[in-house]
Every structure is written in C-alpha cells, then in structure tokens.
C-alpha cells in the first residue's frame, strides 16, 4: 500500500496516500466538525468548519479538501482552529432562529450540537436575517429557509446522487436561497419526494411531516430492510411508544443513504385503523371476528376433511413475495410436508 507518514495532534500515523485529512482523522477517531461534507459527494468546502492547522502551511486548510501528505503536522483542535470554528458558528447561529424549544430537529441538529460543543450562545450579530421563505407544498416534508445554513447538501444530493435536480440555489451572496425554479414550490417542481434531501439536512430546515409529535431523544431506532421493491434498501425505523414515526436510510449499505418516497415516507399503513387485528371467519356469508383457536380449528378440520376426501393435490397455495424467507419456507413446508403436495406457487410474476 502506498502510504504517507504524518503527525496529527502530536501522534504519528501512517495513512494511505490520497486520503483526505477529514477521512483520515475520522478513521483514527478524531472528530472534526463539518456541516457540508458527505462522503458520497464531491467535496464542496463551503461550511469551512473542518479547517485544521498544518504547520508551515500558513492559513487554515479545510480537512475535507486537503489530502494527506508526507511529513504533514496537523493540529485539529489548536487554539487558532477552535477560535475560527467558534467565529464561524457565531456567524451561522447569528442568522438562525433560536427556536430550539419548538424545533422538531432539536436533539438531532448539528448546529445546535456544535454551538454547544464550542460554547456559542445566541450569536453576536443578530441583525439582518435571511429573507424568510417557507415551502409547505410537499405532502411529506417542509422547507424553512430561515433555518437553512446553505450547506448545500440537499442540492448536491438531489443533483449528484438522486439525479432529479428539483432544487437549486437562487441568487447569490447573503441573498442565496435553496429553492425550486421561480420559487414555485416543490409540488410544481420535478421533485419526486424521495426525501433524500431531508435525510441529509443537518439542521431543521428540511423537516419530515410526522403524524405524531416526538423529541429526537425519545426515539428508538431499528435497522431493517425496506418492504417495497426488490432493491431491499436498508433503513432505520424510528419508533416511539410502539409506533413508527420516521425512517432514516442506512448509509453503510448498498443503498448508500438513499431511499425513495415509499421507503422514506410510506410507513403509516402500519398503524392504519384498517389493519386486521383479529382472525375472521365466514358465518352465514359474512366475515366475523373470532378467536385464533376457532380460526385454527376451522382451517385444520377443513384441511383434514379435504385431504381425506380429495387427496393432497386438492390443496393449492400461493406464497408471498412480500413475506420473509422464513415465512415462505414455512409455507412451502406446510404444503409439502404437512399437506403432501407441491401445489405451491407465488404471484410474483406480476
């Protein structure tokens, strides 16, 4: 392996050539703050928070855009670096509402976390604020420009990864805004509601709509596989009080942090009042609720009867492309082993 030797915070390391300093540091457990970096995207270097000091290199350098070099001596948390980060955070929070009490993202907000870590309170320069703009035209999520820190992750994900290009930047400088063309709102754009922008928003600017109120710290997460198409995206179900309240894509899986509108947002069927909660049997032509015991009895006695009267091949079963491998295995085992027939097929040719 082609490596370089360098010093980070006083310790010697050997790191693969071409690695960016940010990645190198994260690999060895040094936490450098960043708001705009995403391993999947071309580095943008826009938030400037990941800057580090390199001895002999003059000004500060962003770790996300600087590659490791032989003999580098890096300080990730020197006084100069910490001061710069504090000043940058001060600038950001100065142009950000202080409504953490009611913000849905409180507890999962990078700006909040970093301001806390670096000791920034309400911001020194709370003068002119960015122009307010609110887009609530999408059924699954909202956009609040006043909370946007212009890290650009949403725009870059929509472009570089999702390829939809529904959103972009409008204007320039202090007037810059993330927006849809002509500010006509997401519903009038090419947006496909995949929510991949929402998944990367580090603050509360892009916010999923949830049927249930929750605080981020009340949430439990469970890694699972999406149940829609055959791509099998990995995702984390966010749950509170035995209810799914949100979905986050897995970044360390083959879907690389991407989901589609169904995987990201269509989970409310789980708690829909139409769900079947009791077995039903047909009595006098209508389906009525019953106990498991009765339902099982009806089925097994009919099974025994049918087998006796018409033989094993009078059974047929359709197994499910929607159920788990274990469910499917059990289904065909029941047919083959218990009922003695190979009349098992599935509807998945459709």
């Amino acid at each position, binding site marked *: 392996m082609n490596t370089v030797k360098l010093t980070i915070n006083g310790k010697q390391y050997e790191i693969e050539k071409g690695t960016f300093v940010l990645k190198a540091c994260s690999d060895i457990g040094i936490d450098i703050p960043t708001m705009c970096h995403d391993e999947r995207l071309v580095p943008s270097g826009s938030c400037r928070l990941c800057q580090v000091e390199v001895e002999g290199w003059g000004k500060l350098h962003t770790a996300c855009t600087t590659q490791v070099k032989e003999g580098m001596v890096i300080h990730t948390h020197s006084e100069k670096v910490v001061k710069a980060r504090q000043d940058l955070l001060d600038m950001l929070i100065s142009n950000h509402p202080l409504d953490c009490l009611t913000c849905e993202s409180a507890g999962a907000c990078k700006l909040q976390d970093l301001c806390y870590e670096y000791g920034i309170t309400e911001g020194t320069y709370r003068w002119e604020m960015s122009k307010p703009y609110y887009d609530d035209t999408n059924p699954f999520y909202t956009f609040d420009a006043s909370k946007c820190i212009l890290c650009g992750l949403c725009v870059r994900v929509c472009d570089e990864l999702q390829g939809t290009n529904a959103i*972009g930047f*409008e204007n320039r400088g202090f007037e810059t805004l993330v927006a*849809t063309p002509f500010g006509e709102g997401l519903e009038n754009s090419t947006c496909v509601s995949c929510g991949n922008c929402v998944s990367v928003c580090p603050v509360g600017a892009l916010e999923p709509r949830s049927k249930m109120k929750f605080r981020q710290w009340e949430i439990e997460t469970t890694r699972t596989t999406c149940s829609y198409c055959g791509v099998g995206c990995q995702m984390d179900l966010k749950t509170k009080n035995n209810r799914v309240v949100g979905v986050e894509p897995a970044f360390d899986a083959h879907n690389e942090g991407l989901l589609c509108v169904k995987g990201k947002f269509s989970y409310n069927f789980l708690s829909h009042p139409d769900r079947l909660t009791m077995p039903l049997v047909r009595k006098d032509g209508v389906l009525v609720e019953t106990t498991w015991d009765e339902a099982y009895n009806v089925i097994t006695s009919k099974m025994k009867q049918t087998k006796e009267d018409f033989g094993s091949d009078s059974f047929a079963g359709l197994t499910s492309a929607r159920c788990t491998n274990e469910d499917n295995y059990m289904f065909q085992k029941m047919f083959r082993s218990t009922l003695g027939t190979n009349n098992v097929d599935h509807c998945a040719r459709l």
Partner: protein
Amino acid sequence: MEFKFDKEENKEQIVAFMEFLDSKKNTPGPLMPSLQRAQDVFGFLPKEMLETISKELSIPMAEIYGVATFYSQFSFVPTGKNKVSVCLGTACYVKGAQSILEEIESQLGIESGETTVDEVFSIAAARCVGDCSIAPVILVNEDVYAKVKKEDITEILAKYN
C-alpha cells in the same frame, strides 16, 4: 410588476432563438451563451424561453434558474426602453457617483434595479465600466456621459424621453 410574455408578438425572435439553440447543441458549455442571447433578444429572460432552453439543451430547470439568478446581468422582468447605468466603481464613487445615482432615482421616481411605469427608463448601478479616467460616468444605453454633475441629469434624461 405583472406582465406577460407574448409569444405571438415575439414569434420571429423565438424562431431565430431556436435556431441559435440548435447551433449550441452538442457544443461545450452552451448555457451561458444561450441565456445571454435570450436576455439580448427578449430584453429579459422569459420563463417560457428558459423552459425551452432546458428542454433543448437537456439542462435541468433548477440549474438554469440558479445560473439565471446568480449573474446580475440577467433579469426576469423586462427593462425599460432606455437603460441608465450609473457607474459605482471606485473612481466614480470617490468623485460622487452615489449622489448622481440618487439624483437620477429621485428624478425618475424609481430605485436602482427598477423600471419606470411607462417602461421608458430603467436604472442600474453598474460595477466599474472602465472609464475611470473620466469619472464619474453614466451610460444611457451605449452613450457614455463623462464627468457628470448632478445638475446635468435633467438635460441628459430629457434626450431620451
């Protein structure tokens, strides 16, 4: 300001513009020249034409919109018949260009970046136009007025009314 882009009225220009777009297909970096041409031909960037550019050149609308709002020379509203540009470059500024701009604004009753109701004038504060040695300078369309004083404004504007 409400206005509508009249496709019928601009029929010929549209045809010519489509030809231009055709010539830009498969050339590298066609967006800026296309927007410049549209701004030139129509006096502003009509939304309909941006949609055409998007379609013809296969560039996402969000990207076009982002570019169109980034550069100060592009506008989504028509400019007046006469474009008054007041240079606010350093040389002009130290020689009182700001007060010249204010004078023009007050005479026309609009602010920089706006167009008069009768669409005769619009004002733009220009970055250095490169005529620093004859500062302060204003331009009306392509006419350059050198060493302008506040009291000259009435006379200059009258020429274009």
